[in-house]
């Protein structure tokens, strides 16, 4: 509790006035000379306990009433359950979740969770802390501590505006921890403003253990979590998986694969208008949604034949969560899906090249080149989507090693195949072990079929991975995500944990007949290679779809990117959905689709994450207008009234003795 007029607290000793007056009266009472002291003493003895208690209660009520009046005039502010108690901290750090899901709105007022939370927090901090504490903002867009002059700045700053990103709450907390330890902030209040989305909090991450341990060592730290966890009712979300410009002799059209999802609890069929805007030309179609998901595959939208490239978006009718009602896309003449096989072994490279040159999508062009490791420097890095690296792993500080890492950072793909010669170098935390041969070919016992290279087809049919036979296997060592295992829990295909948009896989065998049946059977290898190629091709070409995020537009000068439609600050460009262009590059930025998952953390999960820390959760709702901290003089007036009432009741004269006085 804090006070708007704290100086008046010096008047608090006045609360003792009733006691002083009582003592004065005690010595100023009229005196009566009395003979029958015997009866008086007996009556006193009979009445002693109750009378003393009553007298103490009366005095306590009077003191309470005076104290309440004094508190009223000091204009107390309290967060009550908000924990804004215990005085003013030295530093207040606000960790702001600006993810797309925080834009869920109160439909009546149009206020988002983010805006409501910021406004309330700013008001509460202004009323309670004011400028007496150092105020620091860390938001998920930039993860950089920003010193604020006053709490009201929270409302006006672009850094607290909306984004279409996802939040990394452990990273926010890590940012706060770094700031606290670097600046020795003293007594610190950390406020986390979030909607508790599981995708943002990443509760399974190993980072939490380290954060808990580090925060537990900090003295005077209090964590406050202002949560807006309520889901959006009847929310619809749209996303576009694929955009292809298709041109035939007579017409040109855009083929869209799009998906509309809604709250899993809604099953009523509904007619839904879908609005397409392509190069500022809009069209609307009506679709019927019968389940919780509607998928349109290859939905064709006619375009002018002369329109070779452009941008567009799909829009849903407005609902409580506007961030997922629009999905932007760009299109261009499709780039050639180029791949390079770096290998000396023609027997192995041949099937790979054949598979990569075969057209999985008849509308695209495919090209695959085989280069010996010595000629790896000739790779056209800008145009290649997939590199199949069947050569010794490069050293991390070699030029080729750095180039491969840059290739991954640019969102492209690499599939590593083992070589016959021993090689102890590691790439992305993984390296090759020894070869082993099986007399009886091993089969794939487990593979991941929900995502990754071996996932089921779009129709849900599983790939015949179980039919693959592996007679020679090279051990894959190091940390990674297994995608397939042979009998005996031996990893066959691993995905390396490499930061960035690109993907690197390690396959523990070769496609040739001497090692496995991959080349012979073909289907699994073809699917695997083309999926890796498509993953790498996402960032290929002049028109690209990207997830909004700090690194969405690279690390260069952001001001060179021009946004179509509304303008935003250059620093905010990569964080906001829309279409941006630089030179001949068109990039459609959209929210990460994991923002569409409405699952939130429960209290038990939060308790586990913050176990051992001084924290408390304030559950708020975007429809709730009540401020976090408010003047609570009414409460004190109420207390005063109660105290006076209690005093009056206790002071009421006792009921007249119904019995006549003795010996009358």
């Amino acid at each position, binding site marked *: 509790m804090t006070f708007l007029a704290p100086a008046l607290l010096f008047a608090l000793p006045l609360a003792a006035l009733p006691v002083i007056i009582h003592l004065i009266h005690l010595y100023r009472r009229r005196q009566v000379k009395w003979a029958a002291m*015997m009866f008086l003493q007996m009556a006193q003895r009979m009445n002693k306990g109750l009378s003393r208690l009553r007298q103490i209660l009366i005095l306590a009520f009077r003191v309470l009433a005076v104290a309440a009046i004094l508190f009223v005039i000091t204009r107390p502010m309290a967060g009550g359950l908000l924990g804004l108690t215990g005085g003013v901290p030295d530093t207040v750090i606000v960790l702001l979740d600006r993810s797309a899901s925080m834009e869920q709105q109160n439909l009546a007022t149009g206020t988002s969770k983010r805006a409501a939370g910021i406004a309330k927090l700013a008001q509460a901090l202004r009323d309670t802390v004011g400028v007496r504490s150092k105020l620091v903002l860390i938001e998920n867009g930039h993860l950089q501590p920003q010193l604020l002059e006053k709490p009201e700045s929270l409302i006006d700053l672009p850094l607290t505006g909306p984004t279409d990103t996802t939040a990394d709450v452990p990273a926010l907390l890590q940012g706060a921890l770094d700031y606290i330890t670097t600046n020795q902030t003293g007594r610190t209040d950390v406020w986390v403003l979030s909607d508790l989305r599981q995708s943002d909090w990443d509760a399974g991450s190993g980072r939490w253990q380290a954060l808990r341990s580090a925060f537990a060592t900090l003295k005077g730290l209090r964590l406050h979590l202002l949560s807006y966890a309520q889901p959006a009712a009847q929310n619809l979300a749209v996303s576009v998986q694929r955009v292809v410009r298709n041109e035939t002799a007579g017409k040109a059209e855009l083929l869209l694969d799009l998906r509309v999802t809604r709250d899993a609890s809604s099953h009523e069929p509904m007619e839904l208008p879908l609005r397409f805007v392509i190069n500022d030309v809009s069209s609307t179609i009506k679709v019927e949604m019968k389940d919780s998901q509607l998928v349109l595959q290859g939905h064709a939208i006619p375009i002018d034949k002369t329109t070779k490239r452009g941008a567009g978006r799909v829009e849903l009718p407005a609902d409580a969560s506007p961030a997922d009602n629009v999905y932007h896309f760009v299109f261009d003449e499709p780039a050639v899906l180029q791949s390079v096989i770096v290998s000396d072994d023609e027997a192995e490279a041949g099937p790979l090249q054949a598979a990569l040159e075969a057209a999985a999508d008849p509308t695209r062009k495919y090209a695959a080149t085989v280069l010996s490791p010595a000629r790896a420097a000739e790779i056209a890095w800008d145009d290649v989507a997939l590199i199949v690296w069947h050569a010794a792993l490069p050293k991390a500080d070699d030029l080729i090693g750095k180039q491969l890492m840059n290739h991954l950072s640019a969102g492209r793909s690499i599939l590593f195949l083992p070589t016959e010669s021993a090689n102890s170098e590691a790439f992305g935390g993984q390296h090759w072990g020894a070869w082993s041969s099986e007399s009886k070919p091993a089969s794939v016992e487990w593979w991941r079929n929900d995502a990754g290279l071996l996932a089921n087809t779009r129709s849900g049919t599983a790939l015949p991975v179980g039919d693959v036979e592996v007679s020679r296997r090279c051990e894959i060592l190091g940390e990674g995500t297994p995608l397939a295992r042979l009998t005996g829990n031996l990893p066959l295909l691993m995905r390396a944990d490499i930061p960035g948009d690109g993907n690197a896989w390690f396959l523990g065998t070769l496609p040739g007949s001497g090692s496995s049946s991959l080349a012979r059977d073909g289907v699994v290898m073809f699917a695997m290679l083309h999926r890796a190629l498509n993953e790498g091709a996402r960032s290929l070409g002049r028109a690209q779809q990207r997830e909004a995020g700090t690194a969405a537009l690279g690390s260069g000068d952001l001001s060179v990117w021009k946004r179509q439609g509304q303008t935003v600050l250059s620093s905010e460009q990569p964080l906001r959905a829309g279409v941006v262009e630089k030179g001949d590059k068109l990039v459609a930025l959209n929210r990460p689709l994991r923002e569409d998952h409405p699952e939130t953390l429960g209290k038990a999960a939060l308790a586990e994450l913050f176990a051992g820390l001084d924290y408390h959760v304030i559950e708020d709702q975007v429809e709730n207008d009540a401020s976090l901290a408010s003047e609570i003089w009414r409460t004190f007036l109420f207390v005063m009234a109660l105290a006076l009432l209690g005093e009056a009741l206790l002071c009421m*004269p006792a009921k007249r003795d119904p*019995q006549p006085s003795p010996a009358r």
Partner: protein
Amino acid sequence: MALPLNARHAMLGGVSGKHRSPVRGSSLEFAQYRKYVPGDDTRRLDWRTWGRSDRFYIKEFEADTNLRLCLLMDTSGSMNYGPADSTRFDYARKLAGTLGYIAAQQGDAVGLWSLAEKSVEIPAKRGASHLGLVLDQMAGIQPVGGTTLLTALHDAAEKIRQRALVVIFSDLFVPPAELKSAIQHLRFRKHDVAVFHLLDQQELDFDFDRPARFIDMEGGEAILADPSLIARNYREAVRQYLHEMDELVRTTGMDYQRVKLHEKYDDVLAKFLLARVEKKGGR
């Protein structure tokens, strides 16, 4: 007709008087027969009885004697309580003085004992001049100090050797159980004990309207009390005390008069004397 002051029990007086004596005497009032023992005055033999029963019986008659009236006055500080113009002690003085006068008029002896540390002890004697002395002493007494009622009553019981009508004037602000032993001591010495229990209505009602500091008139502590809080318990304490006092009267057989200071003292005396006349008449 003036009301006499009668004793309820036989008195052992030094001279002839109006009161019954335990000693058989020569009055006209027959008392009893008793067997002759050697040494008895043969003149008192009832020859008629001898003639009828062939046994010697002595015929005894009542002896009338005078009365010793001992006025025991409580002179503790609490006796000063009462309206400004008339305290409890003033009231007691009127009662005692009047009784002394009546007794003297009957030819009875009158004595005065003040029940205090510095006591006045005037043995009972007859005569108008002695009455004057008693009344003068009575007028000079100033109630003061703590109560020594119980001790003084025991002292008086020991010092008043002959049977007497002992009349006590007091507020009796002592525990009835302790008072009982003192009264029984007096009764053991064959005294006819009468008590004037002097109380004020305010002492019974405790009818105060606001808190006050009550100062003990006998020099004890002062008590701060809120009548609204303790009046009920006060009355309960008084009720209990008076009940115990009634029980004391019943068990000791003393002549007890509960007097409130607003009552007229002549009415109180008349009631007291009349009750004694009725007792005697019924003998």
